[in-house]
């Protein structure tokens, strides 16, 4: 019996319900921890209850009420208020939003909280990750992460950050940080190979799980579906991105038989559903770019014209230097490296290692190997993780070997 897996899968829902019942995140977290402690004692002998999640929620609620009654005096207004509230609130949520997790994710990703804090709270409260795991995943000392989470919970309580799904008028503004948090969690697991490899893979899985949850709860938001599609299509290639020795394998060099066909099929179906709705947004377009890659049996079969057209569209919606850089990669395939190099020369991305490695790649293709070596070197000095650095070292050495 894998109670840890059940905790990971179910604790978010239970914590979310308990936050609504008691109006307090600490009470909710403590009660759910208590309930799982009871489960660890009981389940191995008694067997799993028919609905473990519901059992945890009910047990947690009862434990919290007992604890509050025991510990609260008549003068403890906070505990009294929590008890009165739990007495009044039905265990099953009612109203237009029937899932407490959606309320909770909007609280965790409230714009009054810093993005790093939004991520940590989301992972802890909805993902069931413990503070040490989150600290390890983000390469932050445990005490720092614990202090960050404690401060955030205090702010939520003191400033009264509400526990509700925003209305239609605010939803677009409020959905943006929610999607960004899920995307950042995924990227943290996907694009870096430093730190604890296992925890990193877990971050990708957790982000996909959160994106699935959002898509299930907000099926009419095309960007939510776009984000899920983007994550699924990226995740489909994760195994192929790493060579047996741990080094990075770029898209053109990946063994495409190692791509996950089920994830690709699911992601592509979502992209097609988004196209039919015709309400494009940045996540949907990035998902579509990934869908085009997924369609190509070999790198040479890639429909770069289609990808360039998608980046043209993305650049209109999100005119950022990073999008312009990605567009230039597609442009190099359609119109050649000289055209692409001309496009990126003016971009304000000097501190971004992928700018320098892209530039280096274009220079190498134009036979300007000395400049390419220098640019790879610059990229290497900015890259954050070991796998990328050794990859760039190799490229720089190869370019240097071809000079003179």
């Amino acid at each position: 019996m894998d109670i840890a897996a059940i905790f990971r899968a179910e604790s978010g829902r239970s914590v979310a319900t308990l936050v609504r019942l008691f109006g307090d995140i600490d009470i909710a977290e403590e009660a759910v921890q208590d309930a799982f402690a009871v489960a660890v004692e009981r389940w191995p002998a008694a067997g799993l209850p028919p609905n473990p999640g519901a059992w945890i929620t009910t047990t947690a609620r009862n434990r919290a009420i007992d604890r509050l009654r025991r510990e609260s005096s008549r003068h403890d207004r906070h505990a009294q208020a929590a008890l009165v509230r739990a007495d009044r609130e039905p265990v099953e949520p009612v109203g237009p939003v029937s899932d407490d997790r959606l309320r909770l994710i909007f609280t965790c990703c409230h714009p009054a909280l810093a993005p790093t804090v939004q991520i940590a709270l989301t992972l802890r409260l909805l993902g069931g990750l413990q503070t040490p795991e989150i600290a390890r995943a983000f390469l932050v000392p445990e005490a720092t992460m614990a202090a960050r989470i404690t401060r955030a919970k205090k702010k939520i309580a003191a400033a009264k950050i509400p526990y509700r799904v925003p209305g239609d008028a605010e939803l677009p503004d409020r959905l943006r940080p929610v999607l960004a948090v899920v995307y950042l969690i995924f990227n943290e697991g996907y694009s870096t190979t430093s730190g604890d490899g296992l925890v990193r893979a877990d971050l990708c899985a957790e982000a996909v799980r959160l994106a699935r949850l959002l898509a299930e709860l907000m099926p009419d938001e095309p960007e939510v579906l776009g984000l899920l599609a983007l994550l699924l299509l990226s995740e489909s290639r994760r195994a192929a991105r790493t060579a047996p020795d741990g080094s990075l394998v770029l898209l053109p060099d990946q063994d495409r038989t190692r791509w996950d066909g089920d994830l690709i099929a699911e992601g592509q179906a979502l992209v097609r559903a988004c196209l039919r709705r015709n309400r494009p947004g940045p996540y949907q377009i990035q998902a579509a770019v990934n869908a085009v890659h997924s369609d190509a049996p070999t790198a040479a079969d890639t429909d770069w014209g289609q990808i360039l057209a998608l980046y043209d569209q993305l650049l209109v919606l999100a005119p950022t230097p990073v999008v312009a850089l990605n567009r230039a990669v597609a442009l190099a395939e359609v119109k050649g490296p000289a055209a692409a190099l001309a496009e990126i020369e003016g971009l304000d991305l000097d501190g971004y290692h992928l700018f320098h490695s892209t530039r280096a790649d274009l220079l190498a293709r134009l036979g300007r190997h000395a400049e390419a070596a220098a640019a790879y070197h610059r990229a290497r000095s900015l890259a954050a993780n070991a796998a990328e650095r050794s990859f760039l070292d190799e490229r720089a050495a190869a370019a240097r070997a071809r000079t003179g």
Partner: protein
Amino acid sequence: MTQYLMSVWMVEGTEPYASPEEMEQAFKDVEVFNDELKAAGKWVFAGGLHPASTATVVKVADGGDVITTDGPFAETKEQLGGFWVIQAADLDEALALAARATVACKAPVEVRPFQDEPAA
């Protein structure tokens, strides 16, 4: 209902308004906003302050004596220029009011909750 401090921040040495007309407009807009706060039952108290150069600090020194010094306490360029105390149901409502406040007074507004009133 929670009470929130909406403090208005000025940067010493910079003029918040581009022209006398703009200042005039800001005063008018703040007045309209204040009337709406009162009508909606959100108003507790508000006021604008003279520049930080008019401030005096009184504090207990190491020896236990109370001493008086010229100037503001915080040694920064950012100084309090005025404030509202409002009451709102939650932070979202307070932030929505702060959004209107900053547009009216044309300066950054910081929102901070008051501690609960002690039990009677």
